[in-house]
């Protein structure tokens, strides 16, 4: 794991790393920064006393390393890195990952059939999505971006409600008000997102500060894609979060594409994780297709935030295997041969090999699980499609806590004009 420590009491090792890598100017800056000019954000105590059940990556602050990983391609763990997670936890993550992959396949078909209007697939990012959210407690809050719907499912959002949201009918919690994949799940502390890029990142800081002010043991997850790291709200959130020492974890799913724009055009920074240094925050680059690495790194960041150590920035390096959405055609702007390379790093296959090596999984269980997923999705689609349309009068609900006079009048007049 490329660990970028904010509290830059430059150790000789750190200096050596920076000098050895002259193409990373930020690392040099980090190494050269005197501790008094760097905000004391990352609690040394929290960083040096991590969760007991998670292995902690160590090493000098290096910013353009290969990302931290645990699993080799064949599913075996690198020496000394296996966090040895509880089997139930790992199987729960595996079930969730395979469910959202199955869901992608079915929902893209529904979209092509015209039964839903849009779908934003997660394919290739199931490990980053599920293993990161699994490292939080249910009481923690999730401020998601587009590809974190799996986090809601992981927390118990029903498949039927998820499908209903993509249809936008009376079973949809958001009452048909948003495009597909814009879920809301209050009991899961999963906040309804907007389509505007990056706006949710400062919200995560605010949720975290609210919890801190009230003395609640709650951490907030601020998710984003690589494109969002170019937004102004990324900057203000990183800075506010670090200055206020908010219990928040910033999680960037770097899938390397913002619709048609590759990461090289998004930033010329050696990594995204290195950006954390300038905010006085720890930045960690993780193999996002490695479930155990994502879980370990996230758990460590969550534990640190919970212990009062302030925010951490995680860059989960992954890849968007499909288009941005059902409306996108990636052959217009990228050589699809790169997909093959990343399919070889598939997070589900890699994790399955690990589970098999631990004797926790086999082909019979796999076949059974796939059948369960398909049946559950079929049932959810059937139940969701059976729901009635959103009642017309709800157009004026939830604009305010109570419907004001001018909205009542607009509704009445429109219904009159339309003949009831």
């Amino acid at each position, binding site marked *: 794991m490329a660990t970028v420590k904010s509290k830059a009491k430059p150790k000789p090792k750190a200096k050596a790393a920076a000098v050895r890598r002259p193409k990373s100017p930020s690392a040099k800056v980090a190494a050269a920064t005197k501790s008094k000019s760097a905000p004391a954000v990352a609690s040394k105590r929290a960083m040096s006393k991590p969760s007991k059940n998670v292995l902690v990556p160590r090493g000098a602050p290096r910013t353009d390393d290969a990302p931290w990983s645990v699993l080799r391609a064949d599913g075996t763990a690198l020496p000394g890195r296996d966090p040895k997670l509880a089997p139930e936890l790992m199987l729960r993550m595996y079930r969730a990952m395979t469910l959202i992959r199955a869901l992608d396949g079915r929902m893209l078909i529904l979209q092509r059939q015209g039964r839903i209007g849009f779908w934003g697939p997660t394919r290739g990012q199931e490990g980053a999505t599920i293993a990161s959210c699994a490292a939080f407690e249910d009481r923690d809050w999730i401020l998601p971006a587009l590809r974190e719907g799996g986090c809601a499912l992981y927390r118990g959002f029903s498949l039927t409600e998820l499908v209903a949201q993509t249809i936008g009918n009376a079973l949809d919690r958001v009452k048909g008000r948003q495009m597909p994949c814009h879920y*809301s799940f209050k009991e899961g502390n999963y906040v*309804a997102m907007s389509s505007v890029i990056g*706006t949710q990142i*400062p919200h995560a800081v605010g*949720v975290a500060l609210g919890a801190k002010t009230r003395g609640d043991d709650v951490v907030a997850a601020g998710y984003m894609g690589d494109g969002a790291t170019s937004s102004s709200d990324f900057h203000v959130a990183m800075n506010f979060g670090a200055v206020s020492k908010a219990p928040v974890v910033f999680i960037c799913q770097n899938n390397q594409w913002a619709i048609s724009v590759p990461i090289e055009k998004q930033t010329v920074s050696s990594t995204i994780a290195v950006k954390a240094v300038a905010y006085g925050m720890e930045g960690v680059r993780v193999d996002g297709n490695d479930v155990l690495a994502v879980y370990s790194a996230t758990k460590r960041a969550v534990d640190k935030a919970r212990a009062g150590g302030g925010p951490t920035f995680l860059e989960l390096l992954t890849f968007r295997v499909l288009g941005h959405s059902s409306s996108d055609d990636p052959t217009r702007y990228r050589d699809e041969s790169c997909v093959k390379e990343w399919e070889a790093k598939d997070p589900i296959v890699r994790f399955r090999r690990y589970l098999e090596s631990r004797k926790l999984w086999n082909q019979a269980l796999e076949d059974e699980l796939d059948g369960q997923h398909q049946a559950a999705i079929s049932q959810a689609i059937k139940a969701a499609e059976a729901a009635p349309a959103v009642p017309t009068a709800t157009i004026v609900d939830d604009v305010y806590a109570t419907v004001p006079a001018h909205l009542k009048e607009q509704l009445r007049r429109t219904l009159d004009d339309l003949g009831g």
Partner: protein
Amino acid sequence: MTTMTLLQAVNSGLKDIMQDDDRVVVFGEDVGINGGVFRATEGLTKQYGEERCFDTPLAESGIIGVAIGMALYGMRPVPEIQFADFIFPAFDQIVSEAAKMRYRSGGEFTCPMVIRTPYGGGIRGGHYHSQSPEAYFCHTPGLKVVVPSTPYDAKGLLISSIRDEDPVLFLEPKRIYRSTKQDVPEGVYEVPLGKARIARAGKDVTIVTFGAMVSICEKAAEDAAAKGMDVEIVDLRTLLPLDEEAILTSVAKTGRLVVVQEAPRFCSFGGEISAIVAEKAIEYLQAPILRVAGFDTPFPYSLEHVYMPDAKRVLAAVERAVNF
């Protein structure tokens, strides 16, 4: 009762509501130890500690974005934008996020918060310390927009806004922050949102206005009275949701309408008032609806006195309406 300026009434309102409701937190640029550049938050950090009133990094979208997160979590944030002219970096957070949260989540998540900001001209502030941006925000379903014009209303409306379940933009007319004093009750009290006030009763012409323009219109009404014209002034207090009934009742009585605002004329809030009256009360009108407004220019520094509506320009409009 204590005699207070509008600014002191805001400060008193914040102090009392923070005592009353421990969910209320105040933050923004320079609001902590410095008490705000106008001193509206003076003493809050001392009285309630840095957890309840604190300085933020200098980024308006961050101030509002963080406030939204706190509101989602169940706090009652009262962020300050130092001047309304600086609110635009936070426009996206206010318009796309705070205003739409309840609707887009089907009512699952809400953003009860009050964005306080001094607005308006007449203080030699040039482009960036003088503007009246209400129209941008009144075009946004999901927001409430409140503008007090007296110390009593400032405190009561502020408390009502903080207790409201929806996000409120609270525009404070900084030109009259210290210009008049009024008896203001101690402790919390409410002035209801969405209810206009008849600042002056009259039978010949209705003036609809708000904020710092109310006192300008009162002066014009005095001058008009000396010329035998009886002016009624409707002080809107809340722009969104608008008290249409108060406006229509007054126009039905007088048959003439002058709308007065500081903001540029084109596509302005005054235009909306004009349209509502034209649609719903044209049978009562004895003269064209007239607007007195700022110029459709950036806010000027040296020619501020030309830009800003004053009692003379308001009086001229009243005379045109009466003599039509």
